[in-house]
Structure formats: structure tokens, C-alpha cells
């Protein structure tokens, strides 16, 4: 366990020194995973809301598929995105492989099902409470979905955080489509994998601690925003 103590010391030194490379890597991790979270919410929330509020044939199968897709293996997502963005692939002409954009696309695909499946459950529970009320108001589907998304916003924030957590912690997809290129596509998780492969376990663990501090910071920020919003709502 001597490594753990060393790792803590390394993490402290890294954070306190404000090392330029670390700031760059942390910045890219945040940029990629937060952008992917926003994109995944833009795709996943409407899908979740529509499936939650509508009854249609084959709905049960759709639910099973949506829930199963939450378990998408990052490496497989990485490979699929790689095959599409590779110069030899159908979208190769975009020249996106080994760029942050490729990493955002991969993480968006990875977490959009999580956002869709979890928001579907949240909204469906809420819809069950409000369904009679809504039908008495003769709301359109669009109005219903909008009202539900707004009313469930705090629960959906947690859904978004679950997606962000998955994105910022995964290494398999960004390693393949980003390539872990220094000063271009290196993020926290690929840097941790690299240091592990160099046998520098204390530095790898230290970076891991920094990553957890980062996730803690994002969650604390969202939590405080939510508290402020709630307070204003009741003020």
C-alpha cells in the first residue's frame, strides 16, 4: 500500500504545482466529456420523453433495447466510430479521426442511451402522476413532453451527471478514436493508461485521484446551482 501514499503525494504535488501539461489534459477531458454530455442530452432527453409518454406497438422491445444499450462497451463504440471516421471509412473525408471531435462523437454515442433510458424512467413515473391532469387540459404531445421535461429537470440533472460520469471515466473509446496524442487528444483516462503501461503506478494513481477530484468538482458545482435554483423558486 506504499503506492497509495506515494500516489496521494503525487496528486497533491500535481494539483498544487498547476503543471501546464496537466491543466491542458484536464481541460480537454472536461471539454470533451461536457460537450458529449450536452449532445447526449439533446438526443437522449427527447427520445426518453417520447417513449415515456407514448404507447405504441413494440414499445416493450424498445425499452429492453434502450436499457441494454446502457451497457454498450466503450471499446466497441470506439471501434465502430473508428471504422466510420477512418480515412478508409465512409466519413473519412471529414478528417475527424484523432481529433477531439471524434472523441466527442464516441462519448456521445456511449452515453446517449444512458440519458434516454434513465430519463424515460424518470419521466414515465412523473407522467403517471400527471396523466389525468394533462388529458383534462387536452395538451398536445409536444406540450406534454415540454411540461414533463421542465418539471423533472432536477431529476434529469442527475441523469445528465450519470452520463457525464460514464463519459469522463471511460478510456476504451477515446483511446481508439483519439489516439492519446500528446497536446492534441490526451485526456485524463488515456494519460492514466499510458503511465500504467510505463510502470509509473504512483503517477497513474495520482492522475486518477485528480480525475476523481475533477468529477467531484463538477458534481458539487451542479449541486450548488440546483440549490440556488430551488431557493429562488421558493423565495
Amino acid at each position, binding site marked *: 500500500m506504499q503506492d497509495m501514499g506515494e500516489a496521494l503525494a503525487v496528486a497533491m504535488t500535481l494539483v498544487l504545482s498547476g503543471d501546464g501539461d496537466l491543466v491542458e489534459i484536464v481541460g480537454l477531458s472536461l*471539454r*470533451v466529456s461536457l*460537450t458529449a454530455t450536452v*449532445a447526449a442530452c439533446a438526443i437522449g432527453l427527447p427520445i426518453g420523453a417520447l417513449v415515456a409518454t407514448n404507447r405504441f406497438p413494440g414499445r416493450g422491445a424498445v425499452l429492453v433495447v434502450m436499457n441494454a444499450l446502457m451497457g454498450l462497451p466503450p471499446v466497441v463504440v470506439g471501434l465502430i466510430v473508428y471504422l*466510420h471516421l*477512418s*480515412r*478508409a*471509412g465512409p*466519413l*473519412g473525408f*471529414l*478528417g*475527424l*479521426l*484523432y*481529433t*477531439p*471531435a471524434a472523441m*466527442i*462523437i464516441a462519448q*456521445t454515442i456511449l452515453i446517449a442511451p444512458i440519458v434516454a433510458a434513465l430519463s424515460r424512467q424518470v419521466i414515465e413515473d412523473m407522467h403517471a402522476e400527471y396523466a389525468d391532469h394533462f388529458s383534462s387540459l387536452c395538451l398536445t404531445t409536444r406540450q406534454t413532453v415540454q411540461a414533463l421535461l421542465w418539471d423533472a429537470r432536477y431529476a434529469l440533472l442527475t441523469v445528465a451527471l450519470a452520463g457525464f460520469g460514464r463519459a469522463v471515466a471511460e478510456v476504451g473509446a477515446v483511446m481508439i478514436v483519439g*489516439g*492519446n*496524442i*500528446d497536446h*492534441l487528444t490526451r485526456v485524463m483516462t488515456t494519460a492514466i493508461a*499510458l503511465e*500504467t*503501461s*510505463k*510502470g*509509473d*503506478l504512483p503517477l497513474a494513481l495520482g492522475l486518477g485521484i485528480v480525475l476523481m477530484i475533477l468529477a467531484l468538482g463538477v458534481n458539487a458545482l451542479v449541486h450548488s446551482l440546483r440549490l440556488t435554483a430551488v431557493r429562488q423558486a421558493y423565495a
Partner: protein
Amino acid sequence: MKPLRLAALLCAVSLPCAALADDILVQSTTSTANSGLYDHLLPIFAEATGIQVNVVAVGTGQAIRNARNCDGDVLLVHAKPAEEKFVADGFGASRTDLMYNDFIIVGPAADPAAVAGLDDIQPALEKIAAAQALFASRGDDSGTHKKEVSLWASTSVDPATASGDWYRETGSGMGATLNAGIGMGAYVMTDRATWISFKNKQDYKILVEGDADLFNQYGVIPVSAKKCPSVNVEGAQAFADWLLSDAGQAAIADYEVDGQQLFFPNAPD
């Protein structure tokens, strides 16, 4: 086309999107990256030419596959037959010897198969097999793995029959295989550069070295613009030319870790 619109949107919000035209991308074996060689060479090259070099470090097998998909401008790996096939298939403009070092067998200080000090690889491997001592293989089609397989083929042992028993194929990179091998007390074949710069050695030592069969040649190949029109031909050629020039070769020879030279330049004159 929806994915395209999405890609364009993501592009807009996350500049720099595509790498700059002057940049080149090197598909590389891991030993040159993990040992810090690029951190030493690339600033010198960038200063001389203004060209930014981006490196994707994966196993030789995967690096070649990526380059066959035209996802790279230069290939720098260590598996001569596979490299020559890459050029023969039209994907490489030309292949040139760049530098060499050697492979070694590392193992625990206890040395259960008693191979320490051997300078002949075949008897060493046969002793490991006879003792059924654990041996961790890359098992990932990398340059090191191809070499290891060819060395076993020159012995009387077929380790594949013992796969999962004493012969453990990790299916991962050199560093991960060293970590796993050290974790289970297995012998591991590695290139010397990775070993010298590896930081989790514990009680492991170099046990077998010095056989001519353990020679490890690295080659450099600019990717051909005929097969891959997207390639940065000038940048790729400039990088290969510089590596093979006196300045590049001297820079390779200058690189040391713990006072030991890791790579020995041997480009043809």
C-alpha cells in the same frame, strides 16, 4: 445526412477540429513512445523544420493496420517482414532501417527455470518450458509478439499447447504485459528500451541477453500517396529524411535513460 450535421456541429464547438495541414501523424510502436524517445526527438525536429509531429503509439500490428486505412503519414515499427509486405502491397513509399536495440528476457530474482546468465535464447526458452515456469506473452500481434513467436518456432516447444497453463497470453501492450508478468512472477520477453525506462520493476532482472537472434530492428516508412491521397507527402518525407540524416541519427544516439543508450542508429549511408 444527420451524422454529418452532428459532426459539423461538434466540429464548430470544439476547435481545433482537424489537425493542421502542416502536421504529420506517425503510427508508431509503443516502445519508442513509452521510453520517451519521441519527447527527445520531436522538439529537435520541430525546431529544424517547423513541422508538428503527432504520435499514435500502438502495437506494431495495429499501427500497420491503421496505416493501411490511411490513418497516418509515417509508419515507425519493428517487424521487418510485415513492413516489407506493407511496402510491397503499395501502402508504403519505401522502407529504411532506422535504428536497433535488442530483446531481453526478464524474470523474478528467484529464477525458477534457472535461465540467468544464458546468452542463447533457444535453450533458455526450452528450460522455461521444461520447468513449466510461467511465461507472459504479449499475444497481440505486435512486433515483439511476432518476434517471440518466431523464437519459440526455432525451439522444440510449441507454447500454444500450454496457453492458459504456464504460457499466459495477455493480449495487451508491453507495459501492461510487464505489469501482469511481474504480478504473477512470470518470465517476460521485452525490448530493452521499454525495460530500462519501465518504473515498476520490483525484484525483476534481465536474465537472458546477448543472443544475435534477439536483435531488434526498427524501420521507418512514409505512407504512399498512391494508396492514400490524404497523406501529407512532404511532411512525411521530411520526417523520414530527417530521422535518417546525420542530425537525426545523432539525436537518436544521444537519447539516454539512467545513463544507458536505448536505441542505436543504423540508417544506411
